[in-house]
Each structure stands twice: as C-alpha cells, then as structure tokens.
C-alpha cells in the first residue's frame, strides 16, 4: 500500500451475489488474492471504475472476515449501474479505509445492542452485526430490526435466516412495507414496528436507512424514552477525496468522510441541519 491517499490500489471482483432486484454484493480481493486492507465496522472505501467514476461505499463485511471484503451496493447512479454490469474477474480500484467506525471497542462494549436498518441501510450495519456475533462475549443481547419494501428486497436473506436467526442471544425482527404472497411475517414501516416492539431502554441503538425512516424512527425512539446519546447512525454525503480536503461532505465544522460517517444523534444536533 502506498502513502498516497488519492492513488488507489487494484482490486479484483472475485464473486458477485445477486441479493435483490437492485442490490448486488461484490467480493473484492487484491490481484494477489488477499484482503485489500484492514478496517473497523462502519468504515468505508472508495471504489472506482476508471473512466466511469469513484464513490464512497460502506464496507459490508466484518473485519473478522480475514479472507476478503464485501460491498453490498444498490444500483442507483452512473457508477453503481456500471458495477452492476460487471462480471466476475473485473478489476476495479479501491482505496481506504476511511472514516470513524462505530465504537465497537469502546462505548458499545458490554452493551445490549439494537440494530435498526431499512433497505440498503443494512449494508454498513451488517459489518457491525457480524463483528459483534464473532466477538459475542464482549456484548450483551443483540436485537436486529430490519425492513425492506418487499421480501425480495431484504439484502442477503439467507444469512439472516440461516445464521442470525439461529444464533443464541440474537433476536431478529423482519418487516416489509406491503402484504406479499409467501410472507407471513410482520408488515408495516420500521418506525411503527420499532414502537410496537417496545425495546428495552437500556439498549444502545445503531440505525441506518433512508432519511425518512431515520427521522420517524428517531422520533419514535424518543417517545419510547430513549436518549439521543444512545442512538448512533451513519451518514452519506457526496465525497471525492475521502480525507477531509475536497470540501464536499462538509456539514458545519465536520467532514463526514473523516469525522463521520458514524455519528451519535446528540453530536448531529450540534451540526447545522444540512444533510
């Protein structure tokens, strides 16, 4: 690895999993067949196809996975369209890790954790969830509330069903927006679902999803009696450099790429409302 933040390294896409109609998960290794670099849960990497563009993506795989890195990416723009058209074996460029991770080794240690994810918002939280599962003794109970538009939009449903749901001390609550044939689980939006579940106020919350979900879920958590100091989220803004210099992800005196993307809601309250 070089010291040059703006010069990326080579990566190779060694596996592509189709998760949903618009989400694929890409496995990335170096050309030598090893993991590109180490990271902590919640950190991000800049992926690029030269000539198409470069963008910041949260690293979906857990740091405890020593073999490879995974990125769950939703098709929603120029670069992601291109990534979705790739075949296995395609080289890409990668640089990172960037940003401040979830405080898994400090504030979250020993805590009962409540994960709330909507849609592709599971991508950054999956890294934390699997990190916690692999370091089970360091954390209390784990509850995962995950919702998507439909059953088909739940990202990596197999892992959820076959691994998370079979774990001791892990409670998984799934919901989808509308009734669907073959779905006998909960139907409804996340904010109401969380209120119905009435989670224990001792829990520390890690939340990621679309802005509207975040807004109403946070409101619901406050009504239940949670404090903003108990709730973490991870932000997404336009980024170019990844190291707090190009100016794009600036909110107040913070740069989301280096001071975030993980923030606690009481920290966000101190920033201007411009995200």
């Amino acid at each position, binding site marked *: 690895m070089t010291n040059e933040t703006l010069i990326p390294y080579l990566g190779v896409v060694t596996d592509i999993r189709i998760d949903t109609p618009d989400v694929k998960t890409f496995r990335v290794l170096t050309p030598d067949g090893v993991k590109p670099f180490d990271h902590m849960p919640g950190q991000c990497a800049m992926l690029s196809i030269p000539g198409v563009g470069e963008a910041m993506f949260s690293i979906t795989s857990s740091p405890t996975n020593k073999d490879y890195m995974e990125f769950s990416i939703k098709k929603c723009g120029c670069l992601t369209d291109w990534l979705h058209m790739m*075949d296995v074996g395609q080289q890409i460029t990668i640089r990172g890790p960037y940003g401040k991770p979830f405080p898994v080794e400090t504030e979250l240690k020993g805590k009962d954790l409540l994960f709330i994810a909507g849609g592709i918002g599971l991508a950054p939280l999956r890294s934390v969830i699997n990190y916690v599962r692999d370091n089970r003794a360091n954390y209390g109970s784990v509850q995962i509330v995950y919702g998507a538009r439909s059953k088909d939009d739940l990202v990596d449903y197999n892992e959820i069903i076959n691994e998370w749901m079979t774990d001791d001390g892990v409670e998984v609550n799934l919901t989808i927006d509308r009734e669907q044939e073959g779905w006998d689980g909960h139907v409804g939006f996340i904010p109401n679902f969380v209120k119905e579940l009435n989670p224990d106020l001792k829990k520390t919350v890690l939340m990621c999803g679309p802005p509207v979900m975040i807004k109403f879920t946070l409101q619901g958590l406050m009504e239940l009696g949670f404090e903003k100091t108990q709730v973490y989220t991870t932000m997404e803004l336009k980024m*170019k450099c990844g190291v707090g210099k190009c100016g794009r992800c*600036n909110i107040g005196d913070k740069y989301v790429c280096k001071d975030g993307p993980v923030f606690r809601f009481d920290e966000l309250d101190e920033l201007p409302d411009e995200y």
Partner: protein
Amino acid sequence: MMLYLSSDKLDLFLEKASEKLNVYVPVDDTNGGASYKKWKPGTAVSKALHTTKSAKDFFFPQTENLVEFKMSGKNIEIIDPRRETEDYAVFGVRACDVRSFGILDKVFLSDPVDTYYKNRREHGLILGLSCNRPAETCFCGTFGIDAAEPMADVDFTEADNGYFIGANTEKGTAFIESLGDIFEDRGAAPAEEAKAKTREIMKKLPLANLTTDGFGGDKLDELFDAAGWADLSEACIACGTCTFVCPTCQCYDIKDYDTGHGICRFRCWDSCMYSDFTKMAHGNPRLTQKERFRQRFMHKLVYFPSNNDGEFGCVGCGRCLASCPINMNIVKVMKKLAKEDSGK
C-alpha cells in the same frame, strides 16, 4: 542595515535568479488584469496591486493530473504520472496571498498530507512584495495582516527608487546569499518610512474598520439561521467567480477523462456555489442557492475558524469585491450579518 537593489537592477536580479530556478512574475494582461508568467529577458513586471487570480495556482493548480489508468479487458494498470518538480520562485506576492498559503497549508499539509501540494510547496520560494498603494477593496488588516510585511521567504519593500530586501526563512536567506553581490547595503530607514506610509494608508481605507466581531468558530447558532442569507444570496448567479479568484478557496473535484490512450484522473478547482457540488444519487442536501451561498461564507467565517484555532478563512485581498458580477462579496455579508446580530 538592509540589502538594497535599485529599480534598474531588478532585471539583473531576475536574470540571476532565473539561472538557478524558474522565476514567475506578475505581468499585465491585455484585459486590464495581471497574471503570473515565467520571467524571461524583456518581461515587464506588472505594477498591479494584485494578480487577477491568486498565487494558489502554484501549489494547488486549477487542474492537476492525479493518476492514470490503462484499461485492457478486465484489467487495469495504475500509473503515477508525476515527474520531478523543478524549483521555482514567485516574485511580487502580496501579504494577503502569503497569509493564504498558511491557510491552504492547514488543509493540505494536515494528516493525511496531500503529497501533490506538499511537493509543489517545497519546491517553491516566495518573494513577497509589500504594498505601497493598497486599494479601496483591501481589508487584510481585518484579519491581522500587515500589508507592509508579507512575511514570505524573502520580502521586498519598494523605497528610495529600489527595493529593500529582507529574508524571513533559511530558504530565503540561502537564496539571497546565492545571488552574489548584486545587492548594496543601505540603512533601513527609507524602508521603514515606506512601511509606515502603507500602514497609514490602510487606516484611511473605506474598509479599515471592518471587524470580525460576531464571527468565529462559536457563532454557528447565531449565524446559520440568520435572516440575512435570503437577501444576500438572492441575486447570486452561482458563477463561482468568487471561488476561483479566492486565495483560500480550496474545494476540489476529481474527474476522469478518456485521453484515447487511457484514463486520466485529474482534480480541478470546484465551488460550493455550484448546484451539483453536493448532488448525489439520492438527492442534494443544499437545494437552493441560499444554502450554497451560505456554505461558502459560513465556511470562511465559522467552520474554518472552529477547526483552526480561530483563524478565519479570508485574507481580505478584495479580489471577490472586484470580480463579482452582481457586486456581492464577503464584506457585504459580514456587515449585514453583524448588523442583524447586534440588532437582536
């Protein structure tokens, strides 16, 4: 005693200096402005107060290639395009611009260091020139800058039909010594007189009383929701000229360009005044020009000081006052917001 160079020997000085490194001097443009050009025998040094664009170009060029890629099938080759940088000197840099380099340093030389910038910075020698005729648009004093003392590697002060010269850094001293005996020794009194005169003019300029009171890292709540932003930004046409002439604006874009032989990834100056600056696939957090306009000034007057021990992101060079097509500028912003704040 100080070193002195008579005006008729300026060409000799530039010639001697050019034997050692590339020397850039301000040269009058045909459109009434001035810009830095590489000096060669016969080049006339401009007497203009400012170059139209600041000197930040030397360290942070308007466009700069970062990395190149060769694509073949599914494979990519990554190439660092940089060649060795030659040493260079920039003559005639005013105190405001010299200070701006310190501000850019705080961005580009903080961890992780931007090696492109650092390399150019290290190869550059700054030859400052104290102002003797500051203009009505000048307000460097507002930010504690002394127009008479640029504090560059070497400072030149015009007096007594020539230049009094003093080095401020080791690099500057070594450079002056390397030029041999083209300088004379003279009493420093005329230089001190010239500086005193500049300071007297500064006190009488229209913006002499502009203060930073009411601005700073702790003023987020007072300023962000100020009513004044709507009026101030109303006529902004988002041309970004203020950003491009500004010595401290440093936001950049990174883009890819297909050269026909591969992909060239370059960075170029960008502006938070542009609508697509923060636009991404899921939307845009700054939807109207009011928010974009506010960002530029909040960054200079609140966010930057918050992260840099109170130092403001403006040096009072006045370029934006002279260049904005709708005659809007940071001075108007500061005056209106300060008034609004004190009226509360």
